[in-house]
């Protein structure tokens, strides 16, 4: 594994989004992973519709919250094609599901994996390099006050409440860390990103990790 790896260097990670006052982190992380993997496979990096997942993934609760694995399961079972953000734009409110014809262009999920990488974060690094950005669940209670730097304390594992996108890692310095894209806008954290120490599943970053396949 390379000592440092960041999918942003390959221009396959969309800019940081802002979920606003809507509990849609689960949808942002899933759509973020699909956008990136689509670009890694040779397509142009395009923003896909988070609102479509929010409105249509019926086992989840839209802005009231949801599960990344339920959303991925819904995408896999229904083979729904995610349309472009410009065709189904984000409203930060749950709405009625808009349907598109089968002939309408979009990106469908073929499969996904979900694993607990607790104690095996090196294997998680391997999966990141091999598969693309990863959907992860974290405990983000202390992130209310986060300004920047590498989180090493004040974060529990096994108490996840927030979904994020892991886009890289860096092990070249004294403290190895994950590079994680959040969906709270660019004014939060390190221009919208948070760094989490690798090892001990800090914030539960390795507890529930999903990779997508298109």
């Amino acid at each position, binding site marked *: 594994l390379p000592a440092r790896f960041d999918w942003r260097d390959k221009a396959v990670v969309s800019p940081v989004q802002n*979920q606003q*006052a809507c*509990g*849609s*982190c*689960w949808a942002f992380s899933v759509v973020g992973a699909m956008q990136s993997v689509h670009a890694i496979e040779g397509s142009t990096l395009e923003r896909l519709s988070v609102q479509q997942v929010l409105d249509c993934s019926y086992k989840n609760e839209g*802005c*009231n*919250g*949801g*599960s*990344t*694995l*339920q959303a991925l399961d819904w995408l896999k079972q229904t083979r729904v094609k995610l349309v472009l953000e410009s065709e189904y734009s984000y409203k930060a409110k749950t709405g009625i599901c808009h349907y598109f014809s089968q002939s309408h262009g979009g990106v469908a999920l073929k499969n996904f994996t*979900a*694993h*607990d*990488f*607790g104690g*095996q974060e090196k*294997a*998680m690094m*391997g999966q990141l390099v091999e598969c693309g950005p990863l959907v992860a*669940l974290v405990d*983000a*209670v*202390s992130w*209310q*006050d*986060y*300004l*920047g*730097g*590498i*989180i*090493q*304390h*004040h974060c529990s594992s096994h*108490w*996840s*409440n*927030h*979904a994020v996108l892991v886009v890289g890692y860096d092990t070249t*310095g*004294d*403290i190895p860390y994950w590079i994680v894209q959040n969906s*709270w*806008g660019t*004014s*939060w954290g390190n221009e919208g990103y948070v*760094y989490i120490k690798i090892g001990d599943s800090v914030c539960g970053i390795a*507890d*529930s*990790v*999903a990779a997508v396949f298109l």
Partner: protein
Amino acid sequence: SFRELFHRRYDVNSEEFNRRHLYFQDTMKRHKYLNSFSAAPHSAKYGINQFSDLSQKEFRELYLRASTARAPSFSGLKTEG
């Protein structure tokens, strides 16, 4: 200056201002505790941001809405091939 920086519209004479001011003071106390672990050069820093006038309960209810999902333990890398 916080209100100006983060475009808060509540009036200084309003009940909301008083409530938000209390939350803000709680937040400042929390920063002191959180930063007491941040002596090392690259450690996380905690301070005023766009969430500083929210109570912890409000923050959780608005932003921490992902359901926990248990995933099977990673069974190791395949050695074949």
